[in-house]
């Protein structure tokens, strides 16, 4: 019963996204733009030097794009007061969180894959070596980004200045995730296996954040 709430919301969110493609297009365009802006911001570099900057640049882009996507996660539920309907769904509300977070996870992972592909093309940085390790790090880091992001998005959407509030709330909580992800990506981009300490940290943060957000989500929706 409870898991079916999560499943229904996941399918609903993906279907809505597939039909409108609003968030997807906005996030992809934004990501490409950020990468282009970085090109103007740094001095001319050869591709070896570029490889040193790539993890930081990509992760900053990923987080900025994720904030755009997360900001819309609950904004669409405001129409026709769908938030109230969500609050009335049977079972623990954590399952609503799980459905929403999983849909966002799929969305931002797709955007990140496309961004990495474009980055590879434009900057002649070979990200293909160690692609499996990179994918693992992205997948794990996104668990943290989506869990905290979904919880904070549900809160910020009903406040004034919600577009400013979400990044202000979210970015400080993501610094441990970003540090571990950049550390992991630095190794995998160089063709090495992902370092165990970074993976361990990503798994623990992902687990802790998911459990806490699952439990706290009960208090986010109004009675």
């Amino acid at each position: 019963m409870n898991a079916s709430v999560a499943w229904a919301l996941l399918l609903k969110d993906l279907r809505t996204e597939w039909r409108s493609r609003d968030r997807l297009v906005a996030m992809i365009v934004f990501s490409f733009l950020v990468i282009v802006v970085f090109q103007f911001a740094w001095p001319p570099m050869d591709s070896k030097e570029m490889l040193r900057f790539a993890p930081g640049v990509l992760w900053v882009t990923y987080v900025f794009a994720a904030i755009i996507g997360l900001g819309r996660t609950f904004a669409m539920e405001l129409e026709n007061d769908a938030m109230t309907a969500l609050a009335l769904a049977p079972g623990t509300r954590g399952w609503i969180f799980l459905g929403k977070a999983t849909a966002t996870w799929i969305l931002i992972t797709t955007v990140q894959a496309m961004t990495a592909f474009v980055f590879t093309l434009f900057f002649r940085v070979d990200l293909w070596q160690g692609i499996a390790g990179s994918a693992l790090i992205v997948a794990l880091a996104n668990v943290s980004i989506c869990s905290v992001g979904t919880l904070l998005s549900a809160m910020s959407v009903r406040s004034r200045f919600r577009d400013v509030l979400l990044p202000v709330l979210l970015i400080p909580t993501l610094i441990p995730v970003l540090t571990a992800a950049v550390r992991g990506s630095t190794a995998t981009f160089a063709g090495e296996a992902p370092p165990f300490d970074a993976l361990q940290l990503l798994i623990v943060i992902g687990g802790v954040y998911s459990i806490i957000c699952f439990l706290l989500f009960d208090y986010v929706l109004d009675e």
Partner: protein
Amino acid sequence: MNASLDSLAPGATIGRSQRVLGWILLLLTPAFAWVVVGAPTDAVQGTMQKILYVHPPLAYGAYLGFVVTAIGGALFLWRGEERHDQLAIAGAEVGTVFCSLMLITGPIWARGAWGPGNWWVWDARLTLTLLLWFVYLAYLLLRSFTEGEERTARFASIYGILGVVLIPLNYWIIDLVGGNAQHPENIQSGSLGEGMGLPFLVGNLTLFFAFAYLLVLRWRVGVLRAEGERLDYENETTR
């Protein structure tokens, strides 16, 4: 009438503990000043080194503020009582003051010890303390941007709990990236120079009581203000 007297009772208890803490602080402060003035001057850093008696104790206040905010938040989510939310606000505001003072005294010490231009280094612990300061600011911004008192309290409680979870994760990151040259791992016995132990201990005690006093004072103001608003509202509706 009885109901309003009952709900004033926690305010009265808080008031008593505030007075006790105030007296302790009043006695400790001159003692603190006395031992700091009397402490030996550092051979290398000179008088500047005396920031040691203020800077680390401020850090404890900053972290305690986080813990109080999270405890207040968790109690509010569990029991739904306004006074617990007021405790969380008090923890966040006093913690912000301590965290800010720590971030101000640190660079002054660094500039004094290492010469001009050394206001700031991106040392792991320093960076993460700055991050905690941002979490405090985000908490206070969340409170001021959310509408509806009950909702504000709920959202702030959630963020306060998330904030305290961040502390151990941040310490793990410090271990992971290293680069912790400016801050010792912990104060080992004997790492302080001769005659510096007592002022350091008194400094810790004084700033702990300063933290506790300000916390309880702010808590009391919050509880009384909420009570006043409730009475105002009752007067309005019964008129």
